[in-house]
């Protein structure tokens, strides 16, 4: 089975992503995981969370990577692993044309991830949203406030174990 998988021909876009990944792997070695050749969105994970900012900057500026565009940054809850994470969809828009997703994880309670908002300004509000919904901190973020929920909202709504608060400013919240 594994032979077959190794033997399968990857679509060209995934091959490009794999080539881009190899550049990152060469520079950062064990700080990044193996490449996952997911056909919908090939990705790798940053295993040493504190290196995320360096990796991001490297990916943006390296002449063979040029990931100049952050298409999306989403938060994820992994209750089984006791972790929270983000998934960044990156693209080299109009330069090299390749794309890749990067996953970064941190501890579920009190965990933090270095901000990428100085690398891609798009990340600023996306990280605020991830914080708003999941509660991970982004160290070095220029404006670490909630973005959608009211500032005095309790809890983080998209966590798997979220339970809504009973009342907000004296108004009953549950149905």
């Amino acid at each position, binding site marked *: 089975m594994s032979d077959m998988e190794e033997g399968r021909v990857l679509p060209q876009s995934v091959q490009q992503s794999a080539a881009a990944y190899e550049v990152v792997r060469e520079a950062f070695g064990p700080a990044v995981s193996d490449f996952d050749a997911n056909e919908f969105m090939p990705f790798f994970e940053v295993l040493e969370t504190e290196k995320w900012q360096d990796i991001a900057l490297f990916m943006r500026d390296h002449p063979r990577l040029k990931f100049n565009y952050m298409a999306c940054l989403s938060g994820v809850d992994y209750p089984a692993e006791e972790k929270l994470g983000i998934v960044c969809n990156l693209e080299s828009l109009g330069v090299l044309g390749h794309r890749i997703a990067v996953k970064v994880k941190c501890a579920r309670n009190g965990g933090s991830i270095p901000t990428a908002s100085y690398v891609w300004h798009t990340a600023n509000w996306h990280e605020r949203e991830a914080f708003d919904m999941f509660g991970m901190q982004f160290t070095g973020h220029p404006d670490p406030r909630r973005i959608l929920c009211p500032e005095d909202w309790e809890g983080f*709504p998209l966590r798997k174990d979220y339970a809504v608060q009973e009342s907000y*400013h004296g*108004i*009953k919240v*549950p149905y």
Partner: protein
Amino acid sequence: MGLLDASFSKHNVVVTSVDNVLNWARLSSLWPMGFGLACCAIEMMATNASNYDLERFGIFPRSSPRQSDLMIVAGTVTMKMAERVVRLYEQMPEPRYVLSMGSCSNCGGPYWEHGYHVLKGVDRVIPVDVYVPGCPPRPESLIGGLMKIQELIRMEQIGLSRTDALKKLAAKSVDPQQAIERERRAVRA
């Protein structure tokens, strides 16, 4: 429309009660506050536009709560918006009316269970006179709701509380099924 139930006499004189005249004047120029919260607002705008033309009822949106006497809560009321809705309501001069348009503002609608951020019915924060069901309600439904507000105003008298006027309105309600059957028979015939 049966607004003034007296006929004109010889010298263009009409005899009616003060209540009747006041009510007729108020219900013939309902000014809703021009604000919408979600997709219902699109339908409300369509109702204001030329096809459905609310202005033929004297209804046209005002841009200030201080100039409006009707609040159409058109859309999803989030917890964040709820307090603003209350403030706007408080800024409206009395007598004021509230029409809750669509499932979201009636009871939370599709957000009733997992919508942590949605107020489960605008009547949790302000008193509602007329509920219009639908998701979103068609312009005809909204017009129906507005007609209901007009009927409510027609029920009012000096010295009669809003609660009693609403009771009076409920007592005068007709079963729509009968009217629908009557229409169908007329079409078949």
